[in-house]
Every structure is written in C-alpha cells, then in structure tokens.
C-alpha cells in the first residue's frame, strides 16, 4: 500500500529577466519541488494573465543540480588567472566570515576611499537590477558600508538599451520605451525583439494586439522571433536604422501635407516654435531670460509661457534678444532675423530623402514612403480616447527599438528620431502611442509623474551631472567616471552601472592621457554576474579580474568570474529563501499594470547542503563589518523593500539587535500590508506565504505622462537640443582645461540638431585602423546578436532544460548565416566554422538560414564558458571574444554595441 503524497503549491515570483516580475507556484511533493505552474490566482491582476515564461521552469533543475556549490569555499592558490587552479577548499561559514570580516575591518581602518579617490569596495551584479530581487537585504549592507563602486560592468551599456535609458529619461521620463500595445494599431520595430525580450507581459500584450489586427513591421538584418511574428520583415543593413528614421521625418516634413501632422501638439507641447540665435542657443527675453517664440496673434516675439498665443512654426522673424551659451557666455542681438527650431529641423532633414535612405539602408525608397504614409494614416491625428473619465489624445502608432539599434554610435540619432516622430503626430505619452515605462535616473522613483518638474525653459528638469567650472567633477567618484564624462547619466543609485562600464576595465589596464590612475578595488563583491564571459574582449577582462586582490563571490556554482574569487558563499536558490518585492505600476519592458502592491518568494523546499538565505548572509556581513546598527537603520529606511516606519505604521526593527531573515521579512510584510491599506492592515509573513501577493488598483491614467506635462505647462524638449549642446560645449571646455582631447569625437555628438553620419563606417574605419588596409576584405561580414528568451539575464546557462528548450529555437546552436552565402563557401548545415575578428576567434556549427542578410552573421548567446559546469561542454560560439573594448567605438553616452566585422571559414574535417 502506498501512502498518499503530501502535496502543496507554494506561491513564488520569477524575476530572472528585466521583463519581470511574473508570478508562479511551485508544486512540492513530499518535500521535493516537482513542477512549476502559473499562479492562477494572480491572473486578474498580473498583466500577463498570471503566467511565467520558460525560464521559470528551470528553477527546479537549478535547485537540484549536482553542480551546485553547497558549502562555503576558500581559495588555496594565491595566484589568480584563467590558467590557475584556484584550489578551492571547503570551509565553515564561520571561517568564511572570519576571512571576509578581517578584510572588511582592515579596509575600513584604512579608509573607505583609496589614495586615488576611488571607493575601496566595489560590487557588481547582473544587469537590469535583477539580482536585487534575489539578494534579500544585501542592499542594506551596501547602504551601511558607505561608498561602493558599482562601475565594473558585465555588459551594461551593451546588453541593455542604453541610449534609450538616458535620452528616454531626458525627453519623457522613459528609462525604457514601448508602445501602448493594448491600444496601438501600428508598430515599427527596429531590432526590437519584444517576443523574446518582453517577457510574459510583452508576449501576452503583443499576442492580443496581433489577434485584433495590430500591424507590426520589423526592421532588422535577420528574421528574429519577433520578425517572424510580424506582418512584414524589412532586412535593413546593420546600423543604418537612424537613416531610415530620419528619412521618415523627411517624408513627413517635406512630402506630406503639413496639416496631416498634429500642429496644435507641435506648437503648444514641444519646443518647436522657440527661436534660435546665431550661436545655436535659444533667443531669450533680455529681462527674464526666457526663451522666445513668435506669436502670430501679436506679431511679436514673446516668452514661451505667454498665455493665449499662436506660435509660428515656420518663417523668419526679426527681433531683439539675448543668447546665453555655455559657461554663461552671453550675446546681445538687435534686429536679428531668426528661424524657429522647427524651421531649423525642416532644413536639417532636407537631404535625407528616401532615395538617399535607399542607398544607405538597402531598402527601396518606395518602402520608406509607404511606411511613412502608413505611420501618419494610422496615427488618426485628432482622435481622442476616454481613460478613467478623462479625454486624452489617441494616437495608435509607435516605434520600438531593440539593443544594438539602441547602443553606441547612431543610437542617439535613432532615439531622437523616434521621439520626434511621435511628437510630429502628437503621439508621445498618449493612449495608443509611444510611452515610457519607469524612471531610474530621475527622482523620486516612486512614480514617473512625481519626477516631472518644470525647468526655467519650459521643459522637464533633468539632473545632469554638472559641467560648469565650479561644479564639474574633474576627479571621478567611481572608476568608470560617469559623473565626469557623461552628464546625462545623472547621479542616482543606478547611474554608476549605466555609465561607460567598460571604462573601469579599460582604464585599469591603461589610463588615457591626463587621466587619474585607475586601480583595483580592495574588495569586490559579485553576484549573478559573470563579466569574464558576458562582456567584450573577454580574455583581457579576465586578466583584469585576476588582478583584484580580494573577491567575495556569492556563488551558485563555479564560474569563470568566481574562478578568481578568494571566498565563495553559496546562497539558497529562489525557491529556498525569502524576499518581498514591489510589483505593479509600470515598468520595463512592457509591464503596465492596473494594480500595485507586493509579492513574496519563500522557501518551498529546505535549503540544499549548507547554503544560506542571502538575508542571513547580509546580516552576518554587517555584523562582521561592525555595521549592524547602520544596517538595521537602512532596513528601517526601506533599503530592502519598504519603509518599516511611516506616518500610518511603525514596524521598525530594534537597531541594536541581530535579526534573522524571518524576523526581517515579517516586519517588512507587515509594513507592506500597512502601506497598501493606509495602515488598516498589518498582515505579516504568514499571510504573504499563504497568498503570495497583495495589491490595490491604480488608475490607467498613470500610464500616460502627457497629462502630467499638460497640467504643469511643460513642453516636450523636441526638436531642438539646446541643453545638450550647452552641456557638450561646457564638458569640452572642462576636459580641454585638463589637457584631455581623447573625448573630442564624442563631444561632437552634442549639438542642437543631430545629423545622420555613416555609422557603419565608424566600425569599418576602426577595423581598418586596427587590422590594416585589407581588413574589410579579411572581415567582410557584420556579426550581430539577438535576444534569447530562454537564456537572457537568467544565470541559467548551466540548466539542462534551458538548453533543451533553446535548442528548438533557430540560431541558438551555432553561427547563423545566409544559406546562399554558406553554400557558396562550401559550408553545409552543421559544418564547424571559425569566425574571427581582429580581436579573437570563436567556433561553432553553421546554421543555414534564408532569414538573414548576405552580409551578416548572427550568434545568439554568450557561451564562452570554460569553467561553468554543463555550459562549458555546450561548445557553442560566443561573440564576446570577438568584440573589442574600444574608445573609438564608444559614443558620448559611454555606450557601444554588440556588432563587429568578422570573417568566417569552414573548419575542414569537423562536424
């Protein structure tokens, strides 16, 4: 007779990618986790019907993998490097903490900042903030520590949508940008792989939209998953997206009737009517210094905020005004004949005809004209929609970008054109149109609306890093120098990791001219990140990591980065430990909720081996560093999720005592319940364990920022970029005062109106510079990449199920290349090929496809593993060992792209 199994379903959340969180349950039979299912009880509040994507299903194998580290380890070989055996030996948690504690005390005794001004402690986490949702209270430990350098990147600036982060926040509080998919009818997607990178909610929303007839046109060099699910695929030449978009602007402004655009929006809700002076700055009222526009009602120049005006968009107007340039340089103009910003724009885009675009993008001019016309037609200029009792403009067209389009040279111009095209039809931040998701640079981060404040020129305030002489930081606070070099990166907790994160690695090897020496941190914490394989020029980067004197790795298994670690601390997996997080509101990639609240993950099964809950690890680190009180204070301030004390409630922790994980999360859950109910409820951890989540409804009006700008009398900062121009000139002045000229090319990107350059040519020229005159013959192809839903962000490359699932999606297994091209080279499906750039080589089986341009190759993943169990035996190619870390390929925001010129050859006798 068999005994009935004890079965329970335990609510959890999945935040393995930036498109989360999603909600699921794990089925536990007799104490063993056996099955993942969507959390059906959440289907009414979760915008993806309560489902979770394929990645979540990997957590069970991950938990029971024989490759897990199950006890703390210390390094026995003091030499570090790829070729060195670290000689990890098991130690007790006490011994591990003794080693780390001694190091932390030693560092704190020396001072938190080293002799070069850099924090002695550094920490790196995987991208998108995801690790935060698994590291329990470690953020409170970091807050208690003091200055920490987060600028050793592991792909930030490349694997994210970097330019969108910075310019999106500047123009419409959009750390990421997406269509209002539930209401949108026409989407132009430039390399945006939403069906792979948009997570459950992205897939769900776009599936619904396609069924009701939304048309999406996909522009990209290969036919991705998203291209497959689109109405049309346009195989654009790599890195020419900006040319196509500017040509669309040309068609709208030079070929279509002006009245087909949203003229009231352009006049009253953008900076289009502002008058431009001869030095490229706004003409301003001499008394108030406010930018001027020409009022057709008064036939006179008036300050931008004058009531009851009819601003002129076109034409020349003679006036007296002042112009204020960089470093407060001021010019006075009498009787100057000025043009509007809009007029300047019309002139700027005049050369970008569809015929010009055809040559640049390899797309027929008729296609450019047809798509531009469809874009305007679908926009339904003049239409409105009711949202929660308010009437808002309705413009159901949008433009979406993926990475590479959004990174490095050419990305700024893409972001600019996209935002401008939305403004021209009145479709920015309105129902159906182009929306931002959240803020990460502006503050407060509670809502996008809360961060909207007017500046003196009638646009949104933006927290630029200072470039004026008195306040510019000549000496960077962190090693990637984002605060010195990238004004747009601002200075929020996210800013450091968004800057040029490759600079930290590059400058450690060799500082550029007249630059402060960059040194290794005394202690480096790393978690859910593996820059040894996930960034560029991975061989060189691994050498830099090997130079770090003391590394603490929170480790699931042995990998290429923790190979250099001094201590490995094995933490519990997602379903073995506890954490409460915020859910709801609006967040990347397309997480738009009608609710907000909190969700819990919890121990569904006992921790394997001697692994520990990350919260208990963080608490012990705080104790060993002598920071318990500060750590508890940080928890009380809300560092781990929610403030433990507010006007309506007080669930503060006693700051003098050590609290275990369950106590900390009990207090946190009670505070969360109270926050959501205005102090009415105080349900704790047990309640959340049973229910999994707690939410309250929010208005969908919070999705659309236009309403907020209109209420506050703020214009979108389009089309003229006076602020960026000023910042660029000032930054140039500061750098030149320091004798720094190696950023001059980047400084050219700061201008009033962007230009379309030969962006592919920048990569081609660098290839020739590095590899010689015949380099383009030697490396005739573009190598690009594409997002994988199965792998991206998940730290799951060692999970068998993910390999099996990805195996069914074309491109994961090798080097994707055009069938005709391959056959012409004698390469058959499955033949081993070697792909080389001037940096390195990689190899893998050829995957032949008609769905890729003849000048392009594609590699999906980052599989250069040489230590990670399971992954190291996959023998898949990785583009990371082919891409240089290069100043020349870095744009003014500190970003470059996953693209490189390569050659390919068949490896005879290998299959």
């Amino acid at each position, binding site marked *: 007779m068999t005994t009935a199994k004890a079965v329970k379903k335990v609510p959890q959340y999945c935040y393995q990618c930036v498109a989360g969180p999603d909600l699921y349950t794990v089925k536990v039979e007799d104490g063993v986790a056996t099955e993942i299912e969507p959390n*059906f009880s959440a289907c009414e509040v979760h915008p993806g019907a309560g489902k979770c994507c394929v990645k979540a299903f990997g957590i069970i194998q991950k938990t029971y993998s024989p490759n897990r580290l199950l006890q703390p380890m210390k390094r026995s070989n003091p030499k570090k490097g790829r070729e060195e055996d670290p000689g990890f030996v098991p130690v007790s948690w006490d011994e591990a903490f003794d080693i780390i504690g001694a190091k932390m005390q030693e560092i704190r005794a020396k001072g938190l900042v080293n002799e070069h001004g850099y924090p002695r402690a550094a920490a790196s986490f995987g991208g998108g903030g995801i690790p935060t949702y698994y590291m329990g209270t470690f953020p409170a430990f970091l807050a208690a520590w003091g200055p920490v350098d987060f600028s050793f990147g592991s792909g930030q600036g490349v694997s994210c949508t970097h330019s969108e982060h910075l310019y999106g926040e500047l123009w419409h509080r959009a750390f990421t940008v997406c269509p209002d998919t539930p209401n949108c009818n026409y989407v132009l997607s430039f390399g945006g792989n939403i069906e792979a990178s948009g997570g459950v909610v992205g897939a769900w929303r776009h599936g*619904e939209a396609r069924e009701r007839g939304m048309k999406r046109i996909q522009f990209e060099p290969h*036919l991705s998953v998203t291209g497959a699910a689109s109405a049309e695929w346009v195989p654009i030449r790599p890195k020419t997206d900006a040319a196509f978009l500017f040509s669309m602007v040309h068609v709208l402004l030079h070929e279509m009737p002006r009245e087909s655009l949203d003229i009231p929006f352009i006049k009253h809700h953008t900076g289009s009517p502002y008058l431009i002076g001869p030095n490229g700055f706004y003409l301003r009222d001499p008394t108030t210094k406010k930018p001027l526009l020409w009022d057709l009602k008064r036939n006179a120049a008036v300050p931008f905020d004058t009531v009851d005006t009819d601003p002129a968009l076109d034409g020349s107007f003679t006036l007296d005004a002042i112009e204020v340039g960089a470093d407060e340089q001021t010019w006075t103009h009498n009787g100057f004949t000025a043009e509007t910003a809009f007029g300047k724009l019309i002139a700027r885009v005049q050369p970008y005809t569809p015929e010009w675009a055809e040559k640049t993008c390899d797309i027929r001019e008729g296609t450019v004209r047809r798509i531009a016309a469809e874009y305007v037609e679908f926009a339904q200029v003049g239409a409105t929609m009711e949202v929660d009792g308010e009437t808002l403009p309705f413009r159901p067209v949008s433009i979406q970008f993926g990475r590479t389009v959004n990174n490095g040279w050419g990305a700024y111009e893409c972001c600019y054109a996209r935002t401008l095209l939305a403004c021209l039809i009145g479709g920015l931040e309105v129902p159906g149109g182009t929306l931002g998701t959240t803020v990460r640079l502006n503050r407060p981060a509670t809502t996008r609306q809360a961060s909207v404040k007017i500046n003196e020129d009638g646009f949104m305030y933006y927290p630029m890093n200072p470039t004026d002489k008195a306040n510019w930081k000549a000496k960077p606070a962190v090693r990637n120098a984002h605060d010195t070099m990238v004004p747009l990166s601002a200075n929020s907790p996210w800013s450091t990791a968004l800057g040029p994160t490759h600079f930290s690695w590059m400058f450690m090897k060799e500082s550029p001219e007249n630059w402060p020496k960059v040194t290794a941190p005394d202690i480096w914490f790393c978690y859910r990140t593996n820059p040894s394989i996930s960034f560029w020029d991975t061989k060189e980067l691994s050498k830099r990591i090997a130079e770090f004197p003391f590394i603490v790795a929170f480790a699931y298994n042995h990998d290429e980065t923790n190979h250099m670690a001094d201590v490995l601390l094995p933490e519990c997996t997602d379903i073995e430990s506890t954490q409460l997080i915020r859910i709801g509101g609006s967040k990347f990639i397309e997480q738009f909720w009608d609710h907000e609240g909190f969700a819990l993950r919890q121990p569904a099964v006992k921790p394997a081996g001697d692994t520990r809950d990350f919260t208990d690890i963080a608490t012990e680190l705080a104790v060993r560093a002598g920071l318990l009180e500060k750590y508890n204070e940080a928890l009380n301030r809300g560092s781990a999720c929610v403030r433990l004390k507010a006007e309506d409630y007080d669930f503060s922790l006693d700051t003098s005592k050590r609290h275990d994980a369950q106590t900390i999360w009990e207090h946190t859950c009670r505070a969360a319940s109270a926050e959501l109910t205005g102090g009415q409820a105080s349900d704790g951890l047990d309640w959340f364990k049973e229910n999994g989540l707690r939410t309250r409804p929010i208005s969908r009006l919070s999705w659309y920022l236009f309403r907020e700008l209109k209420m506050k009398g703020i214009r979108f900062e389009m089309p003229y970029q006076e602020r960026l121009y000023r910042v660029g000139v000032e930054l140039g002045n500061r750098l030149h005062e320091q004798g720094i000229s190696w950023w001059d090319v980047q400084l050219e990107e700061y201008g009033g109106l962007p230009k379309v350059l030969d962006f592919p040519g920048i990569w081609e020229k660098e290839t020739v510079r590095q590899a010689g005159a015949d380099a383009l013959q030697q490396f005739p192809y573009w190598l690009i990449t594409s997002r994988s839903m199965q792998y991206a962000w998940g730290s799951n490359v060692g999970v068998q199920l993910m390999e099996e699932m990805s195996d069914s*999606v074309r491109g994961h297994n090798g080097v994707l290349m055009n069938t005709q091209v391959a056959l012409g080279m004698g390469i058959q499906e499955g033949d081993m090929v070697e792909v080389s750039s001037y940096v390195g080589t990689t190899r893998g089986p050829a995957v032949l*496809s008609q769905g890729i341009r003849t000048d392009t190759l594609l590699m999906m993943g980052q599989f250069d593993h040489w230590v990670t169990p399971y992954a190291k035996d996959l023998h898949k190619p990785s583009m990371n060992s082919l891409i240089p870390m290069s100043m020349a390929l870095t744009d003014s925001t500190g970003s470059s792209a996953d693209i490189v010129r390569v050659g390919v050859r068949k490896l005879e006798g290998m299959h």
Partner: protein
Amino acid sequence: MTRYIMTADLRRCIGCQTCTAACRHANATPPGVQWRKVLDIESGEFPDVRRSFVPVGCMHCADPPCMHVCPSTATYQRDDGIVGINYDLCIGCGYCAVACPYQARYIVHKAEYAYSERAGANEEARFDPARMSVAMKCNFCQDRIDAAKETGLTPGVDPEATPACVNSCIAGVLAFGDREDPNSNVSQLLAENQFFRMHEELGTDPGFYYIFDKK
C-alpha cells in the same frame, strides 16, 4: 458526446517553448522527450522569407493510425476522443511510432536524467519504471480531465482541469475544450476563425486545429 480537441492560434505563437517546458514538468518526461513541442519553420528565399512557429504533438485523431497498427491493443481511444496508451499492455514494438504521421510518440529504453546517470531529487521523486521501453505521448493531461468529472470543473476553462501546455502558454496561443459543445471556447474560436488541420488529407481526422486568421 464529447470530443476534446486543442486549438493553436498561429498568429500568436512566438516559439518560446514555455508549453514544452510545462509539459515536461507536468508529465515528468525525461530530457528530450517532448510530448508538446513547437517547430521553428522557415520557408521562402531571402528576402521573401517566412518563419513560423507551429506547436505539435499527438493530434488525438478520431481515426488514429497508431491505434490500428498496435499489435497489443495498448493504444486505445476514449469516448471523449483522447487517444491513450496502456503501459501495462505496450510491448514497445514501435509500430505506432512509425505509423503516426505526426511523429508524436517516444520510446525510451534507458533512464536518462538532466545532468548525469544519477537522478536529481525531483527526477527521483517522479521516476516511473512503467514508462521504460513503452510508447509515450501526449494524453491531453487526461488525469486532470478525469478528475474534473468529480470536481465539476470544466476542462479548458478551469486551470485544474486543463492541459499544462494550455495553462502555461504566455501568448494565448493554445486552447482546449469540447468540439461537440457549440458553446465551448474551442467551438467559438473555430466558428470565428479560419483554421486547418495538419495532414488532413490522410483522413486521420486530427483533433488539433491551427487557427491562422479571422473569418
């Protein structure tokens, strides 16, 4: 009468393989054994290329070739249309696997696990020796459907009574229900949309419908 069928809306499918992973979990199949799988199919020549994602598996045919060739009567057909396999009767001859036009059957002769010769705790907990050397395939999660008779839940509507692949689908591709009930979700979908069935010309009367456009 009842005939349970599944529909797949090809406009929605993105080939993410979530349904496949969910099926692997729900049915505890070993690595590589995918009762539900999604094909990634390319057609045409550059630049006029289409890429399609097509969920496949047992079609639960009304006239199943696999059943007709089964020498041991292990393969059977239920009154509700579900085609099943009695592992106690199956001799693992493989005739059914050859006869199935949809390549929906698997036979595993040796226990295989995710990482090694040794089962993980989850694999150990769910290992079923009855499945060795017998034919296996999708059974529309028939245990859930059978349980629904007791609980009163509606297959295809209530998650507890619905196949795991349908429950898990993140793009709303898959639906399940009774084709004979004109008010069921699947009957409504088929009334409103154009569809086809795979290899219909073979006369198998498959119970898996592919929706591709509105009527």
